[in-house]
């Protein structure tokens, strides 16, 4: 490996890491980025316009494909037959679950990470989120407020391209938006029904290009976004940040480089990383003046916990003892599904050609008074339904023959369902640690999860089920059912915490710039810094906070706090 010392190392090339490397490269720094898996190839790895009938197993996949791998999960949608079946998801690096924990840790190891396939909902956090602890007395505030972050949200939105409308709700602040998606039949019906029970139903904030934006083409509505966009009509590192970083010629991108630990100098400050080359399984070191970790929340903490030295016996920059704690996640589940009789038998409409959330019910609970409900804080709900693809509702219809076949078509435009997005509260029982015994096949001590849903989020789950019953009644819908249990923790891919940021070095791992309190040349650019989970998704805020962190870092280079290599 090269003996060159870089100005900065960036670990991870997802929403946060690739944004960091773009900004740092464009500022003229020499950057080495490490990605744990291969370079993604949209032609091979995305669905493109493959249809289900083009696939040998019609999308169910060869059950033997992953045989012999040390993985713990079956296929995920994105790696099914819709792509050419290259290994994009992590099935070699094993993890453990502590007693009573059932965490689903899904990791995309290809460049761009999960942001190749993300859901694109991009709401801003507001002061109701940043100052939640002031409002309800639980946990910690964020070290920033909305006035300070708002310009960074604008910057992220303008860069990414987010479609929505102005809605004038401080709990769900407005941003700089592209034209919204139109409401579908089902949206109008749900909105009317929601109005009757006092629930908002509004266009979501979707990072998807309804018009051409910054040289990226407008969406062509093939409906395959969740398996990657073939032309880059929504923000992803693959189409946005990675090519822009490479264009500067200041980037050295190492693939299949599984980072094991952050290396330190004689003062305990970061001076590089050690990684395992997946192919040769050899350990390699690379040096830099500044290290940015953006390996995706818990993996970032995993690397830090494995970065043990005489300076950092409990993991790098862990004098607070808070590293690995405060793991949060969005509780996901379907609290109600059924159909809208108004739409039975209607001609098929292109309801899902944007493959997008289109509209949602942004948090409406505990807004006026933080203790209106039995739970604190609040959740949001996405609604979906209508025509598109396989008629999954057939299971609700009895019988066989011509009538059955006609019913499948008749109900096709009419189905409706929900997805709750409920934040878990930080809890002393929810954390990660290093499994004391197990190592993965590369010899790296593996991560162990300890996580259970708490009472607060389960109260939200029960609440949402009742709301759905009321909503179905008020919109004249027929109720088929609801999930018995929420999805497994980890399903949402929105884990936060474990390296939370704050001003007090005794209570927080990083400062308000996401710079490690103990190791000022170590920065974090992912959701691990978020001290609490909200009713909103994480990707756009990760980009916004990364932009802000990099701005601060570049300022530190200018002021001589960090030296160039």
């Amino acid at each position, binding site marked *: 490996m090269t003996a060159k010392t870089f100005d900065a190392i960036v670990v991870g090339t997802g929403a946060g890491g690739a944004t960091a490397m773009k900004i740092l490269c464009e500022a003229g720094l020499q950057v080495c980025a490490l990605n744990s898996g291969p370079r993604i190839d949209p032609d091979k790895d995305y669905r493109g316009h493959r*249809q*289900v*009938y083009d696939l040998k*197993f*019609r*999308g*169910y996949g*060869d*059950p033997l494909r992953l*045989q012999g*791998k040390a*993985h*713990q*999960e*079956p296929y995920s949608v994105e790696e099914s037959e819709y792509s050419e079946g290259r290994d994009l998801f992590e099935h070699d690096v094993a993890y453990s679950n502590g007693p009573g924990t059932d965490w689903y840790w899904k990791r995309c190891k290809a460049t761009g990470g999960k942001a190749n396939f993300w859901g694109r909902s991009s709401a801003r956090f507001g002061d109701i989120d940043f100052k939640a602890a002031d409002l309800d007395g639980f946990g910690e505030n964020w070290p920033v407020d909305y006035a300070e972050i708002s310009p960074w949200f604008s910057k992220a939105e303008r860069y990414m391209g987010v479609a929505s409308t102005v809605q004038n709700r401080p709990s769900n602040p407005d941003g700089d938006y592209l034209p919204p*998606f*139109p*409401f579908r*039949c089902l*949206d*109008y*019906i749900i909105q*009317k029904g929601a109005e009757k029970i006092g629930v908002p139903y509004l266009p979501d904030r979707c990072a998807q290009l309804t018009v051409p934006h910054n040289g990226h083409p407008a*969406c*062509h*509505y*093939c*409906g*395959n976004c969740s398996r990657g966009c073939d032309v880059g009509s929504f923000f992803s590192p693959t189409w946005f940040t990675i090519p822009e970083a490479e264009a500067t010629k200041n980037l050295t991108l190492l693939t299949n480089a599984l980072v094991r630990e952050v290396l330190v100098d004689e003062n305990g400050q970061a001076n590089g990383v050690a990684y395992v080359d997946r192919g040769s399984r050899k350990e390699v070191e690379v040096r830099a003046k500044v290290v940015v970790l953006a390996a995706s929340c818990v993996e970032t903490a995993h690397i830090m916990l494995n970065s043990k030295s005489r300076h950092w016996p409990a993991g790098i920059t862990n004098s607070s003892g808070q590293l690995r704690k405060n793991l949060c996640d969005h509780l996901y589940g379907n609290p109600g599904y059924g159909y*809208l009789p*108004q*739409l*039975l*038998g*209607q*001609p*098929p*409409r*292109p309801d*899902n050609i*944007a493959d997008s959330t289109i509209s949602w019910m942004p948090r409406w609970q505990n807004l006026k008074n933080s203790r209106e409900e039995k739970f604190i804080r609040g959740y949001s709900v996405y609604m979906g339904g209508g*025509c*598109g*693809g*396989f*008629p999954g509702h057939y*299971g609700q219809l*009895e*019988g*066989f*023959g*011509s009538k*059955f*076949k006609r019913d*499948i*078509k*008749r109900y*096709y435009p009419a189905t409706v369902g929900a997805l709750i997005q409920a934040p878990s509260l930080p809890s002393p029982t929810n954390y990660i640690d290093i499994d004391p015994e197990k190592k993965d096949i590369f010899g790296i001590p593996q991560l162990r999860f300890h996580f259970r849903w708490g009472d607060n989020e389960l109260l939200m789950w029960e609440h949402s089920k009742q709301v759905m019953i009321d909503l179905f009644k008020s*919109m*004249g819908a027929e109720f088929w059912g609801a999930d018995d249990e929420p999805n497994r923790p980890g399903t949402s891919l929105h884990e936060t915490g474990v390296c939370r940021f704050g001003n007090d070095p005794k209570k927080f791992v990083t400062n308000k710039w996401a710079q490690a309190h103990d190791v000022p040349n170590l920065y974090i650019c992912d959701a691990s810094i978020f001290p609490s989970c909200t009713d909103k998704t994480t990707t756009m805020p990760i980009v916004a906070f990364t932009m802000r962190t990099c701005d601060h870092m570049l300022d530190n280079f200018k002021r001589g706090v960090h030296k160039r290599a």
Partner: protein
Amino acid sequence: MVEHLAEMIIPEDDTPGAKQAGVAEFIDFMVANRVPVSNSRDIRSTDDAIEAGNEAQNRFVAGLDWINARSQSLFKHDFMQCAPEEQNSLLEELAYKEKFKPTTESGREFFQMIRTYTVVGYYTTEIGLETLGDPGLQTAWSQMPGCPHPDDPEHKNLREPTAAGLSNNS
């Protein structure tokens, strides 16, 4: 027999049926390769998938035997030798709650299984998806058309064209 059962579940009427869409070949392929298509099982690993696939294959083969045994006991013939109305009444016992019998539980499970394979096999073909007018068959749109009836947000005044059309035909 699989082809015949699939065609009974999704028959040819004003649009093609299971036979024309090659559903039996699909079922043979999936069962032979031990690919379960129902998500009733909590599959967590390749081992789970293999186990579920083996179980699906065994249940499928046993289910076909169950149908013949039932057919023998009711009509003194194998299923394929029965008259269409006999075949129909046998399946109805397995398909409609109000006709369920306490002794037919394993037959009902098999019927749900072959019904699932048939629906999956049919609506993952171009023929099947075209009968629904799946918008995803068109992979480029100049824009996303919204609701054509915004003046009737509750959609209280829509007529049901398909049902009217079908009732005229029947």
